[in-house]
């Protein structure tokens, strides 16, 4: 119970992109391209548009190991590009 509450708190603290702490939003980039990441609310992941890869967030911890990235298929990528829910994670 306590653990869950702590995780929720971590998700909500900071008011950064998509509930991610602002401190992370300022610092993080795609590990492969070093380009900005975009938070995708629908999948709860961080998307690197530069290389078309999505990185998961597990229990509030961004998983940015390159091999854990998932290639976005073209249609999915286009849909996410057009989504108004997504927020720019790092400019």
């Amino acid at each position, binding site marked *: 119970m306590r653990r869950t509450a702590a995780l929720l708190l971590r998700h909500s603290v900071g008011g950064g992109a998509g509930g991610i702490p602002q401190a992370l939003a300022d610092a993080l*980039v795609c590990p492969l391209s070093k380009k900005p990441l975009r938070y995708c609310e629908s999948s709860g992941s961080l998307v690197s548009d530069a290389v078309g890869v999505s990185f998961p967030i597990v229990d509030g911890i961004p998983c940015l190991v*390159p091999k854990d990235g998932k290639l976005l298929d073209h249609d999915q990528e286009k849909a996410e590009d057009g989504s108004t829910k997504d927020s720019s994670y790092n400019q």
Partner: protein
Amino acid sequence: MAALTAAIPSAPGPAARRRGVAAVRCCSSSAADERQALFSRIAPVYDHLNDVLSLGQHRTWKRICVSWSRAKRGDRVLDLCCGSGDLAFLLSQKVGLDGQVMAVDFSSQQLQTAASRQDQRWKPCHKNIKWIEGDALDLPFVDCYFDAVTVGYGLRNVVDKPKAMREIFRVLKPGSRASILDFNKSSSLFTTSLQSWMIDNVVVPLASGYGLTEEYKYLKSSILQYLTGKELEELAKEAGFSAAKHYELGGGLMGDLERCDQNQTPEIKSGTVKYQHAGNI
């Protein structure tokens, strides 16, 4: 223990930032995967074994490592290969609520342990730590972001050490420093023999009580494949640090490498690398 400090020109190399998508699947070697799995397996008993095997001394060495990073209140700092978070918690106290600590490890299990420890701590400053699963060879941070970087018992386990050092350099601000703590690969036959004897007759037998015999046998081979103080100094300079110095501590079993302050200019970065001989894998 040993420590190394180095200063390097700050201009990040022109290496292409954009890599092909294929890199997503091929950037991690099988050796890296095996090490990642190893550290995930030992995560549940990692802290306890560190205390037992080093007789608690690893805490002192980690405090020294943080001190040599010269992290101060309000700084943004990176703890690379953070494991269960020992160095990150020490750094959070140094930088305070005004500062930030980013803690990176490639083992999700180690990070979950670290996050649980964070939940159990009461000091407000401990809330300034952000845990990130990442690879030391492909850091997910913007250039020139951090005021200091620490690495505790991590560089030895990285497959491509020159690349890891270049990444550390890239994310450091000009004039900042890195402090890297690890086992010392001594050039002294006596020290090497003593180290080897301790691993075979103390570390591995104790670890076998936890069913981790093979995992801790890795310690010996990893030290053999590591770099000596001189080699580490060269590695730091090749990565771009303007100066680097390695110090052995603890009768040659540990060491320290320090940077040259006179080389610090806005065009220079510096780093400290520390190596120590016992306690962690």
